[in-house]
């Protein structure tokens, strides 16, 4: 019997809210994070970084550092593999500069010493001669004729001729005839929008402990969202055979996309290979700001036409993303997400990936989408305001739904935008009265979600309990969700299941925990692995009863004969089968490997009330409601946590967070004192509403939820502030001085 436990209702475990299995360890300090690993004979490493935004490296003199007592190894680019190209070439260049330092904070050398203090002193003793080159850190400036070229020949074939060499990728899509569409409109609004680079702000700095012998065999412990990827990248950077490097992921103190790539691990391994000792490397907070992967800054133009009844007639957007000193800014994501919530006859979007002398951008929760929503949803808010239309009714009128054509091409399958907008309309927040000085904003948001390569293995113990090995680091309570899904299929209690994040030597390749894929893809694989085990359990029962395997079915933890024809046998409980499994055919395990492709997209809509102090321009977010389609909330508390987390990070991005560069190209606020992430007292309680429109691509209907929640906040907050002050806010962050200027401009008329 081919087992299929697909269902969207009638769950016993799924949808409940048990404590997370890693909770006790985390609140008692037992959980081991990146910096919590120690090894006998371990050395401590530190990295020498460029103080210049753009400079040719003339000479690196490490002799003084090497002569210091306690210094065991120094590495520069010469200690890494050569001849790498493409993605791995870029990562290596970012991990350790070659001919040029490309941004303030770019690594140029590293030291391993017997103490962290000696390592820190030793990097000061490394002398680097630089020839300082002109630099550029702003996206619009980097595209101008005459701007310094970060790297010649970095552009790919997508870039049309005549653009500056810093434009390295170009994306364009759409359908219809936007000019004809604008001609049909009663009102056309066109505006320019700017957002600054922000950092994911994870609380745990990057940390690792690496050992690499002269035999080319290595062990690496690190804080990452994807250890198979780390394995692959490190093997390439060091010229190793991939399988000879075993990587274990630590617990993770936040990643939000920022730990989907590699910054320090190859350095620890190179130092270890040279010193023949384990090497620990931990970034400081200032290194995290200067040399990990913030999000892109953007410069965007959006034009939308609307009829008096709210019908959008055409939409056009141009999105320029600053991606730091390497290609990769998610310009196509920005362009594709921009108009995704709307069913448009005429639409056209363009994206530019632009290099500058800043750290290489990395993913940050729905990379590229929040900025697009900021520009598009601001223009829609402006149109609704000028035409006197209700913002929700207008969005409902134009909403994408099953069967309509997406702005970037495909036809939408079953999606939950309409249900989400209707839930907003029905929410008491939407009609609650506002006080003087307050404004309300709403916004939609969209994210694709992802499937990706996934392998899960499940083993039953003699007592009928189960251990599940997954390969996706738990960045949001996913172990609890995996245990709930396995419990549902096996019919055993949640507490009887232990979920472990396996190391790279234990399972097949698992893609990174990114793209909101874990509950979807590892969840699907867990369900399938549990079904595989159930099938084997049924087989053992069938053998015992002497009936065909397909005459046995599984229910609530028991093998049962499928009907009177199958015979009259007492149901066998799982622990009765596992107790004797050694004698009935050996261990019972289930496994599943695939690249599932049915990740369901997720839409959200947020409602925000903001209050602005008219004397100082300071904004307080006084009420916040997140409404989002989760498909099926496996563990509703952690779904709500994702909703709230996205909103909280969005509040920071909208109001005060920004990378500030000086005229010298140096980052001026590489610390939490001047990089103003919200503190707890800056945030209101964030209300959540879970909408459940099941994803047909997952057995239980799961859609990823981790990223969509950060798509609407920038626009929703900007709309709230704009409505509070009576001026359209087109630039983030909306720090007090900027809002005050807007207020003054409004007063001047």
């Amino acid at each position: 019997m081919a087992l299929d436990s697909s269902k969207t209702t009638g769950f016993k475990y799924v949808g409940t809210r048990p404590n997370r299995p890693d909770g006790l360890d985390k609140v008692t300090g037992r959980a081991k994070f990146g910096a919590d690993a120690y090894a006998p004979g371990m050395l401590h490493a530190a990295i020498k970084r460029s103080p210049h935004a753009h400079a040719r490296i003339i000479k690196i003199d490490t002799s003084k550092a090497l002569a210091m007592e306690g210094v065991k190894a120094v590495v520069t680019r010469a200690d890494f593999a050569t001849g790498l190209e493409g993605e791995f070439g870029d990562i290596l260049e970012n991990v350790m500069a070659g001919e040029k330092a490309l941004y303030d904070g770019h690594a140029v050398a590293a030291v391993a010493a017997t103490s962290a203090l000696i390592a820190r002193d030793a990097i000061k003793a490394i002398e680097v001669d630089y020839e300082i080159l002109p630099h550029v850190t702003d996206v619009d400036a980097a595209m101008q004729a005459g701007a310094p070229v970060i790297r010649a020949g970095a552009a790919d074939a997508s870039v049309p001729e005549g653009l500056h060499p810093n434009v390295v990728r170009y994306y364009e899509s759409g359908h219809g005839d936007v000019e004809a569409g604008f001609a049909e409109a009663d009102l056309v609004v066109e505006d320019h929008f700017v957002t600054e680079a922000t950092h994911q702000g994870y609380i745990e700095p990057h940390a690792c402990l690496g050992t690499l012998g002269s035999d080319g065999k290595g062990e690496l412990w690190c804080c990452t969202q994807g250890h198979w990827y780390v394995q692959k990248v490190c093997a390439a950077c060091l010229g190793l055979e991939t399988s000879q490097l075993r990587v274990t992921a630590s617990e993770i103190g936040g990643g939000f996309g920022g730990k989907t790539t590699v910054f320090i691990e190859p350095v620890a391994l190179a130092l270890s290979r040279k010193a023949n000792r384990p090497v620990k490397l931990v970034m400081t907070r200032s290194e995290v700001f200067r040399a990990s992967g913030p999000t892109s800054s953007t410069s965007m133009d959006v034009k939308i036409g609307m009829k008096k009844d709210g019908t959008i007639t055409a939409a056009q957007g141009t999105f320029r993303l600053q991606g730091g000193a390497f290609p990769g800014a998610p310009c196509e994501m920005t362009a594709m997400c921009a108009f995704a919530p709307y069913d448009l006859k005429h639409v056209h979007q363009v994206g530019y990936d632009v290099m500058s002398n800043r750290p290489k951008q990395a993913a940050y929760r729905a990379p590229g989408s929040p900025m697009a929503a900021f520009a598009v949803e601001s223009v829609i808010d402006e149109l609704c305001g000028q035409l006197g239309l209700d913002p929700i009714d207008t969005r409902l009128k134009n909403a994408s739904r099953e069967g309509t054509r997406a702005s970037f091409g495909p036809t939408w399958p079953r999606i939950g935008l309409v249900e989400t907008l209707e839930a907003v309309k029905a929410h008491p927040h939407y009609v609650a009265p506002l006080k003087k000085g307050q404004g309300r904003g709403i916004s939609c948001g969209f994210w694709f979600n992802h499937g990706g390569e996934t392998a899960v293995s499940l083993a039953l113990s003699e007592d009928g309990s189960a251990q599940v090995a997954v390969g996706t680091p738990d960045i949001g309570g996913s172990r609890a969700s995996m245990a709930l899904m396995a419990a549902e299929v096996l019919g055993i209690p949640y507490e009887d299941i232990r979920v472990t994040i396996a190391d790279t030597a234990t399972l097949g390749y698992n893609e990174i925990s990114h793209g909101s894929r874990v509950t979807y893809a590892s969840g699907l694989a867990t369900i399938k692995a549990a079904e595989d085990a159930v099938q084997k359990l049924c087989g053992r029962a069938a053998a015992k009863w002497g009936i065909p395997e397909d005459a046995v079915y599984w229910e609530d933890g028991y093998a049962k004969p499928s009907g009177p024809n199958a015979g009259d046998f007492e149901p066998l409980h799982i622990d009765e089968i596992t107790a004797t499994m050694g004698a009935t055919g050996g261990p019972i395990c289930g496994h599943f490997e695939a690249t599932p492709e049915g990740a369901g997209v997720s839409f959200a809509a947020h409602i925000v009330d903001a209050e602005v102090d008219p004397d100082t321009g300071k904004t307080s977010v006084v009420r916040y409601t997140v409404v989002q389609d989760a498909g099926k909330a496996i563990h509703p508390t952690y779904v709500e946590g994702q909703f709230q987390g996205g909103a909280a990070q969005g509040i920071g991005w909208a109001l005060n967070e920004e990378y500030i560069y000086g005229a010298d190209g140096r980052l001026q606020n590489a610390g939490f004192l001047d990089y103003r992430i919200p503190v707890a007292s800056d945030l209101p309680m964030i209300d959540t509403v879970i909408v459940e429109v099941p994803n047909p691509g997952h057995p239980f209907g799961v859609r990823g939820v981790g990223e969509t929640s950060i798509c609407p906040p920038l626009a929703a907050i900007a709309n709230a502030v704009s409505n509070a002050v009576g001026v359209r806010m087109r630039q983030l962050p909306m720090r007090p001085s900027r809002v005050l200027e807007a207020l003054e401009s409004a007063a001047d008329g």
Partner: protein
Amino acid sequence: MKYYKPATFEEAVALVAGAEGVTRILAGGTDVLVQMRSDIITPDTLIDIKAIPGTHEITRTKDGGWRLGVAVTGAEMSEHPELGRDWPGVVEAMDLIGSTQVQGRATPVGNLCNGSPAADSVPAMIAAGAAVTVTGPEGSREIPVEQIPVGPGKTSLAKGEIITALTLPPRGAQGGDAYLRFIPRTEMDIAVVGCAVNLRLNGDVITEARMVLGAVAPTAVVVHAAADALVGRTLDEDALTALSDLAEASCNPIDDKRGTIKFRTHTAGVLARRAAKIAYSRAKGATA
């Protein structure tokens, strides 16, 4: 680096006077340790004054004022049953510094001697008329707090001198002080502008007034003209406007990542108004 933990001020002064290179006093360490970690300073000598008897005490002086030991922390000030009744502005200024953890370590004397133009307790202490006892090889002298800072990171203390006590004057009848700062967030931030106001009334009429601004110039700015603008009047709209204009006119700020000249100047006027209202209502007997 050498670390000392003297048992007396004589010993501490002798150590400071005899030390070579970079010397730092370790009070709460919430500036010193942070600066050491981020390579801003690397002291040759670190002198921890917290073991000296009396440095943790808050005592009422004979004249009805207050004497604070140099290791008294923000938390100890906030939790003191009477100090905040006399000088709520000084206590609230100190209480704005950092988090609960930082409050358990940070001292007003450290805040003063660190020399930051944005130090929160300094405008409040100056407005209150606080003084410090400076002790050196030649003995001790008492000087007003406003004479200590001379520029960003710089104090008027001579080599071998340390501060050995902080005093606040008697509050007296119908007085009230207040301190406000502007930050873009709600806490854990550094003042973009700070403003302290200290008033005394006779009935509704102001008889004494002091206003001090922080973070708008290289050192805290005493707005002497505030007294002329307020004394002899009630705190009516005209008085508030005059005060706010004076605050704006007294600013000499810089443009930096924390705020523009324009924003700082404007906000100084806003805070002057707001702080004056609070000080006024406190002087009239309000307890908040």
